[in-house]
């Protein structure tokens, strides 16, 4: 691994990953450095919503336009990460139906297809929606798997020569003669201190960008805005359901793979809380109450887990008090802003505008380096999405795929063809809820940079389904142990995985969720006799 780069990108979330891909595609020598696993910040804790932009149409036309453009691009380049579900904006009896007309008009102005539907038609399209709706508008919302999207960007970056270092934490930023020259970092697993140099360093660390900026001696005023969400035990709706009114709490229900997610809230929290997020009972009650207005059956649906993420909101530069907070994309050239050369911060934005954020950042990096290359990220499909259409993909991979193979094709796109499934052992199922085979787990271990069960979960959905890893944790750990990682470590990792799983469940632990956790306790603490004192994973 070289120590000198054209650009170092700090942060392995979607922003860092997208920027790394763009830079690598333009021929730059890139290092991406991330303190945990990829997608562990806001990227791994959001709604998974592929916005049509309709939500912003009335209040923020520019954001709306940005959204629908990126929405269309992602459908093309990230096909295997996106589900084209469409969405509904529903009006309930207590809402103002007049808002709908304004909503539809503004969507049209932003280039967002918004089709007014008869409520009865809407109910036929989406049977789980509240039967009392008095209005519905259909828009091109979708759902996106942020882990898959992040992983695909990183894979492409690596394929084009980028170095990717996860589990390495930046400890200081090297500043010499008023210029940022690189970073010092520590390998969290070995404890080794390392130094990396580059002509430009990009701060893509999300809410932790505030801290990274301070390491460089500059201030970026950020406001951690916590959002809480609930994952339900099955995919109640097939179409995204939104409230057709001014944006508020808990008014979006998003389907994704085998589950659905209700969100979200917005509460300012102190920086210290960003590394230890937990969901409060008040947040749970609010999400359930508002969520059941969108789909009444949520009241009786098992809740799998509760989680929270932090939005990296940034104060606009000419208001350092932070009272005007921007939810838009924020690109800061610290050379012009603070007189510090070689340092850029890219933050704010949304999951689905990551590519645009990457483009702007890379344009700026290239300008500074005198590199004249065009951005290709909107044109070139990500690895996994390089097929014309679903039938094409079906023909290319297997002649008669099993359910597990079809599921893995859904997860990895054409890359699923790389999963070697030669015998019956390979076809054995590790995760029954998500149909993940031994072959797929082995593929992930060998190719997708996995160090523990939680990394595996992010790449393959092992443990994300209805049992949340209860049945498959041990099976997957056995495979990781066999693949060379030491068995003692795999044992500790199993315990850490089960402990982390519980953190998401205890805020919603009653009814079937409590039943199910009692079972998990008896299996892991009882039958397996595991005792665990360690730290909880991010």
């Amino acid at each position, binding site marked *: 691994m070289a120590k000198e780069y054209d650009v170092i990108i700090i942060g392995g979330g979607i922003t860092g990953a997208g920027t790394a891909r763009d830079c690598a595609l333009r021929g730059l020598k890139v290092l991406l450095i991330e303190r945990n696993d990829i997608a562990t910040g806001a990227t791994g804790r959001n709604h998974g919503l592929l916005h049509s932009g309709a939500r912003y149409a009335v209040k923020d036309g520019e954001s709306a336009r940005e959204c629908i453009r990126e929405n269309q691009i992602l459908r093309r380049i990230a096909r295997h990460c996106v589900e084209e579900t469409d969405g509904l904006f529903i009006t309930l009896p207590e809402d103002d139906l007049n808002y709908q007309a304004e909503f539809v008009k503004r969507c049209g102005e932003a280039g967002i297809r918004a089709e007014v539907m008869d409520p009865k038609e809407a109910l036929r399209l989406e049977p789980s929606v509240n039967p009392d709706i008095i209005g519905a508008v259909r828009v091109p919302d979708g759902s996106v798997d942020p882990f898959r999207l992040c992983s695909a960007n990183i894979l492409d970056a690596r394929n084009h020569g980028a170095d990717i270092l996860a589990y390495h934490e930046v400890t200081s930023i090297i500043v010499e003669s008023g210029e940022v020259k690189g970073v010092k970092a520590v390998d969290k697993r070995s404890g080794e201190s390392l130094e990396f140099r580059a002509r430009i360093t990009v701060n893509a660390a999300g809410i932790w960008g505030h801290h990274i900026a301070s390491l460089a001696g500059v201030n970026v005023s950020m406001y951690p805005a916590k959002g809480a969400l609930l994952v339900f035990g099955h995919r109640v709706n097939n179409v995204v359901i939104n409230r057709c009114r001014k944006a508020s709490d808990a008014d979006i229900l998003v389907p994704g793979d085998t589950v659905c997610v209700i969100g979200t809230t917005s509460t300012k929290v102190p920086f210290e809380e960003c590394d230890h997020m937990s969901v409060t*009972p008040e947040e749970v009650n609010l999400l359930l109450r508002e969520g059941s207005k969108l789909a009444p059956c949520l009241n009786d649906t098992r809740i799998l887990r509760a989680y929270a993420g932090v939005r990296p909101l940034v104060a606009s530069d000419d208001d350092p008090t932070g009272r005007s907070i921007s939810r838009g994309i924020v690109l800061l050239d610290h050379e012009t802003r603070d007189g510090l050369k070689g340092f850029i911060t890219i933050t704010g934005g949304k999951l689905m505008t990551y590519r645009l954020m990457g483009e702007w950042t890379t344009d700026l990096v290239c300008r500074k380096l005198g590199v004249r290359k065009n951005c290709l990220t909107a044109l070139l499909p990500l690895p996994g999405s390089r097929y014309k259409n679903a039938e094409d993909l079906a023909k290319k991979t297997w002649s008669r795929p*099993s359910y*597990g193979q079809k599921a893995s094709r859904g997860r990895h796109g054409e890359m699923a063809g790389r999963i070697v499934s030669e015998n*019956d*052992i390979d*076809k*054995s*199922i*590790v995760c*029954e809820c998500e149909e993940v*085979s*031994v072959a797929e787990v082995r593929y992930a271990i060998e190719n997708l940079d996995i160090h523990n069960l939680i990394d595996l979960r992010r790449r393959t959905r092992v443990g994300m389904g209805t049992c949340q890893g209860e*049945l498959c944790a*041990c*099976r997957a*750990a*056995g*495979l990781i*142990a*066999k693949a060379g990682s030491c*068995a*003692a470590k*795999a*044992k500790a990792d*199993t*315990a850490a995985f*089960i*402990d982390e*799983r*519980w*953190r998401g469940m*205890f805020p919603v*632990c*009653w*009814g079937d969720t*409590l*039943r*199910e956790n*009692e*079972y*998990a*306790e*008896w*299996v*892991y*603490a*009882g*039958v*397996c*006799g*595991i*005792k*665990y004192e360690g730290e909880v994973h991010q």
Partner: protein
Amino acid sequence: MKFDTIIIGGGLAGYSCGIRLQKAGRKCAVISTGESSLYFSSGTMGLLDAEDPVGELDKLGPEHPYSKIGRERFVEYASQIQPFFSEAGISLEGSPLGCRWRMSPTGNMVRCWMAMEGVTSFGEEKPYLGAKVLIVNFLGFLDFNTAFIAETLERSGSACTVEAVKLEEFERLRHSATEMRSTNIARALDREETITSLINAVKPLAEGYDTVVLPAVFGLSREGTSGKVARGIGVDTVFIGTMPPSVPGIRTQMQLSKSFQALGGRIFQGDTVIAGNWEGETLRSVRTANIDDMDIKADNFVLASGSFFSKGLAATPYAILEPALGLDVDFSGDRNGWYDLKFFNRQNYIGFGVRTGRDFRAFRGGVECSNVYAAGSVLSGANSLAEGCGAGTAVMTALAVADNILKEE
């Protein structure tokens, strides 16, 4: 329809109580949904996670079921356990008041009291299985973690080799990716030919090894298969429990219900109690889901319906309930007090349950019932997971309740 005693719940506690009463000539019925927590047993029973269980009794507090039974009766029942189960066709290895050790599916050593046939229990916490150990698994069986077991044995100084055995008889199983489960493997192993194939495959591999380790998937329909395998292999063989479902646990469950029926007990299988008909503190009859046009009467009732997983208890966001008869439940009012943030720490909700008096009569609306008792994990006062007293509580309280009922009459 009238019985002397109706037992709600067909698990370890329910059937033990029923067997005791049938032996004393009573006419009993068990109303059971069908399965029980024996399905995810470790294959062993726990009395108390302590080297000297009797010595620890004083530390348990007056509300613990063992305290309600009292030291004298506790010791007496402990000595009756093995003969009681042996008469029911269930062999248990262990000593009445001592403890042994078992190796878990993840290679952890856990204290145990009695081991079911087909699961090996050890006399010490760190058993040494010899210089060379052969761990044999069935190819494609993911619920037996050979890497974890090898790691534990290697720490004790044994050199371990892992072999996966592929038997013709399992090929059919392997075609469907989810069929390589302990119970399906065990079903195939119930056949003589499969056992012979297995012995023929393992015996040559086992030459030169001090011990052979196999998963505890032998003997789904009857005891004795694991012994046959061990003798056939000709080398010391040790059987380690797998992830659920538990083959010894299921066999024990089946044997309990068979034995209860053989004694004349009646089972309402696949049924649930949905309501009770009360006269003051006396329960006259119950209504079940399947038999909705007739009430089932009895002089006495025993609630042995299990904990949350078995639906003997239910949790709303604000309260814990007993759904079948609406009995009083002991639980903490603040939901934050139900759990610990760390999964492997003591979880208080596991200790919640039905409130009972000294003789295990349940309470309803603050008043002690005259003829309704509770036994097993539905009881309050014990955190069976943290204390390691699950099976012990089930059988001890089952015997105590049966004896209390007999004494009353």
